[in-house]
Structure formats: C-alpha cells, structure tokens
C-alpha cells in the first residue's frame, strides 16, 4: 500500500463508559478517527467492540463520556443524527430487509436523499419518477462496484451469506457516508470472499475517500488494512496505535495469548 497521510480528526470519543444494569460493557474508552483512514477496533469476543460501534452511531447511549463528531461534542449520539450526518454501518449479524430484493435494499439506503413527497410518489410522475431513476443510477453504480449484478433482483433472503454481507455493504454505501462503520465484515467468509471484501474496503476508502471504522477478528486482515488500531479487552482499552506498534504491545500479546489458552 502506498504511503498515506492522515487527515483531520473527524470523530473523537472520550472517556466512554457504558453499562447494562450491573454489567459494564465499556470502561473509559477514548480514541479518535482521522479523515480518510481505516481505523480498526480489535479484541476478543465480548471485548465490547460492537457496543463501541453502537455508541458511535447512537444505538446505545453511554452513561459517561463524550462523542465529538465533525466538531460537535455530545454526551450521546442519536441514531437519526448519526444517519443524517453521514455515518453508515453494517452489522455483525446481517440486518437486511429480508422481504426486499438486493436492488430495493440498496435503494432504501438512499432514503435520506429522496426529496419527493408522498403525494408525488403516489402519482409516480414527474419528480418522484425522476428521482427514482436518478437514485437507481447511483444504486446501479454501487451494484457495479460491488460486482453483484447477477443478484440485482433476487430477494436477499435467498442469497448466500457472503452475498448478503455484500448487499449490506451496498446499502451502507448508498448513503454516500463520510464515516463507515463495519462490524466484522469478513466474519464467516471463505478465503476468496474475504479477499473480495478486503478489496472492496480498500477501494471504498480509496475511491470515495470514506473514513472507515472496522471491527474484525482476523488479525491478518486487520493489520493489512488498517492505518491505526484500537485494542479492547473486556471493556478496557489495551492499546491504540499503528498496526506494528500494537502488534508489539505486551498487554495486547498477553490478552491474545490469554485468549488462545
């Protein structure tokens, strides 16, 4: 990979703590994400990685800490704020709209960009149709980008797992996000599918300049893709830095060795 310069900080979480009842899921987590980088969050199962993403896009509301996104500091993010401000995400357990086709799923990802009102859509003439066509074109570009032409009109429920992951990525991309949160995009994939997904992640970052926060299990993938890595373990932040640095960190080594024991 060619040399890259990290941009401005777009997202900063500071001192985030989150608990459910008596269970502490995140404990005083702080890190930042810079414009245009691929930022990974790693850690063993139950480390709180997904919860961290849920905090960033407002599904969970932390008890302590602040989230600063694009210069605005909040105690907690709200889901619709996150979406409206260009934060999109995929899910660890696929969260597609099962009753719809690939095309419609990705079209739904563009809902925030559609301006025609209900009456116009009911008449389906003029603005509404023009918009449908305009957005269809964008969606087709995404379909082309993710190489899922052959499944365009297939109901997503009928697709194999790897394809569903791709469609979900497509739905997130449809929002033209500035910050893309990927929750284990390669989990459960075979080698070939993983390679494809890696290529897509890099291409998204590269072609669209999208900042990416990534959770991933596969250490090889993480180290190859990421500019910087945060390591979590049971809600605690173990390390933060470039892949090489993190790899050499004693606490990280211990935690991972601990896992393999």
């Amino acid at each position, binding site marked *: 990979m060619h040399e890259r310069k990290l941009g401005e900080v777009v997202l900063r979480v500071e001192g985030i703590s989150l608990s459910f009842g008596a269970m502490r899921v995140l404990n005083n987590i702080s890190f930042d994400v810079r414009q245009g980088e691929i930022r990974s969050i790693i850690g063993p199962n139950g480390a709180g990685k997904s919860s961290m993403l849920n905090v960033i*896009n407002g*599904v969970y509301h932390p008890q302590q800490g602040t989230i600063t996104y694009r210069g605005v500091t909040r105690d907690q993010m709200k*889901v*619709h704020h*996150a*979406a*409206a401000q260009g934060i*999109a*995400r995929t*899910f660890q357990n696929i*969260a*597609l*709209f*099962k*009753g*719809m086709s690939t095309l*419609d799923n990705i*079209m*739904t*990802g563009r*809902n*925030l960009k*559609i301006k*025609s009102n*209900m009456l116009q*859509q*009911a*008449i*389906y003439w003029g603005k*509404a*149709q023009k*918009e*449908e*066509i305009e957005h*269809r*074109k964008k969606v087709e570009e995404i379909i082309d980008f993710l190489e899922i032409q052959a499944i365009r009109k297939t109901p997503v429920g009928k697709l194999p797992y790897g394809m569903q992951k791709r469609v979900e990525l497509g*739905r*997130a991309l449809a*929002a033209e996000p500035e910050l893309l949160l990927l929750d284990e995009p390669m989990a459960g994939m075979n080698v070939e599918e993983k390679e494809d997904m890696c290529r897509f992640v890099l291409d998204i970052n590269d072609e669209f300049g999208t900042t990416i926060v990534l959770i991933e299990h596969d250490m090889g993938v993480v180290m190859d893709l990421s500019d910087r890595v945060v390591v979590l373990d049971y809600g605690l932040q173990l390390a933060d830095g470039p892949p090489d640095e993190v790899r050499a960190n004693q606490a990280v080594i211990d935690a991972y060795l601990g896992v393999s024991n």
Partner: protein
Amino acid sequence: MLYREAGEFKSTYRADQAILTIRQDRWFMWALLVVAFLVIPLVSSEYWLGTIMLPFLILALAALGLNVLTGYAGQLSLGTGGFMATGAFAAYKLATAFPELHILVVILMSGGITAGVGLLFGIPSLRIKGFYLAVATLASQFFLIWMFNKFGWFTNYSSSGVISAPPMSLFGDNFVTGPYATPEAKYLFTLTLVVLFALMTKNLVRSNIGREWMAVRDMDIAAEIIGIKMLPTKLKAFGYSSFLCGIAGALWAFVYTGSVEPLAFDVNRSFQILFMIIIGGLGSIMGAFLGAAFIVLLPIFLSNAPHWFGLNIAVDMISHIEFMVFGALIIFFLIVEPHGLARLWQLLKEKLRLWPFPY
C-alpha cells in the same frame, strides 16, 4: 408456458421500473380492465353488480388500506372497522351539512378526515409494537363505534342511529347514491375509484415511502440506523391506510348500502378485512383483491352449496358453519401458504415463466 420473454430487454430505467415489466402481464392487465369496465357491466345481472361486485370492490379497497399498514409497514391493526365507520360518518356529516359538495369531494374529504383520526391512533405505534399495538388498535375500534353510537350529532340525531345517504350525482342526473342510482353507475363509479387507488397504492409501495415501510416491517432498528425516521414513516402508513379505509367506509355507506348503522363496522368487520389480507396475501396489492373476492364469495357459496346437494339447513346453522369454515380456512392458508393467494398466484406465474423447468 404462456410467457415469451426472450428479446424483452429494458433500455431505460423507466421501463425497468414499470409496474408490469413483462409484455404478457401487461396484456393480461389490460384484458382484465376491459372485462371489468366493459364486459361485466354489460353481462352482469343487477344482483351480481349490486350485491357481489360492489361489496367486493369496497372491501378490497379497505383490505388494500389494511395491507398498507399491516402487510407493508408491519403494523398489525384490528381497527379497520372503526376507520371505515369514521369515513362513513364523515361522509354523512359532510353531505348533509354541505349539500352542495360534489360526491367526489365528499368522499375524498371523508378519507382525509379518517386519515387524521388514523394518525391520532397511530401515535402510540412509536412506543408500542407488535401485539401491544394490535390491542391498542382494538381500542380505537371500540372507542370509535361507541362514539358514533353515543353522540346523536353524528347521525343528525336520527332516532334509530342509522344514517342514510342523500341522492348525489356525479354529473347531471348520473346518480351514484340514493334511489335513482343504477347498479351500473354505482359499480362503474366504485370501480374507477378502486382502480385509481390501487394504482396509487402500487406507486407508493414501489417508491421510497414503500421501501421505508417495508424496511420498518422487516427490521426496524436497521431501518432507523440508515436514517428512516420511525414516527413519520409509521404515521404515513397509518394515515394512508385510514385514508383508504375511510373512503371504503364512505362508499359502503353511500354507494353500497345507502343507509348504515355503526354496527356494520364493528370488530367483526375488522376481522373480516384482516382475513382478506391474510388469505389474499400480506404485502401485496393483488392479495387485497384476491382475498376480498374470496371472503365475499365464500359465504355466498356456503349458503348456496347445501341447496345444490338438496340439503336444507337452518340459516343460523349456516352462519355457524360459515364461522367454522372461515376459521379452518384461515388456519389452512397459514399452514399451506402463509403469504396467501397472492403468493400462490406469483408461484403459478413463476412456474409458467420457467415452464417446462421446475426452477
């Protein structure tokens, strides 16, 4: 088997996004419309038009409304009857208070009023979901019927609680309500409205709002995360659904029966409409029509069938048997095809498209 699709390619998105993309389907639809608009009024008896086609069309419209809410937006509702009643009484009040209003205006406005009421009862849907919501919609059903029964204002203080539609004409003396209206006029008027609203509904469900509804239905949390706002989306479903149900109610009271009491829209009406969309198919425009046809025709079949076999069964017995058959059919359909007649239709179509292959 009937399909010949090779060479039917789309070179514009407009063509690709059309409602019926296959030529044969378009022919079929046009043929159906020709039959509905020309053949049926010409060949049908008054009985058929007045007592079968009219309720079929009107109930199909109500089912369409419920299907938007339940089938597309995933919000289970048991309050359809209440909304139909609202439409009926709104139309009555409008027509009697402002006799100069045109019938179309009356009907559309009563739909609008019902939509408002629907919005009101849809507000809890933001916080409550699933069965809790279904029960909440029952509340609206009971409340609305009680209200129309209780307050004489709604019936212009008629002693019987029955409202009667004044004669109204579309233009000149083409009456569509009241004693001067011919069954043909009533039928064509209703048919036109129902076809237009079906088209409108189809347009909605294939547009952004329709996708938002289905997204909320399939996975609300994911829908929210991609930016779909829950309350407006659900309220639009409630509003539009009640709009259609209101119009159906107005048509029922004005065009079909001519006079009606609130009991015509009791909770059994709600269930009847719900059955239509279960049997017809949740989340399908076609399903609303198929289900309505089925539910309208079944009792007629059941009450006539014993005669064909030379049996004489008491009327109340027949109504009990009807209950049983309904119940059994519902269960049968849910087991055999939870997505209803529309899915069967679709499967048949798929089979024909792939013929002679099985897949």
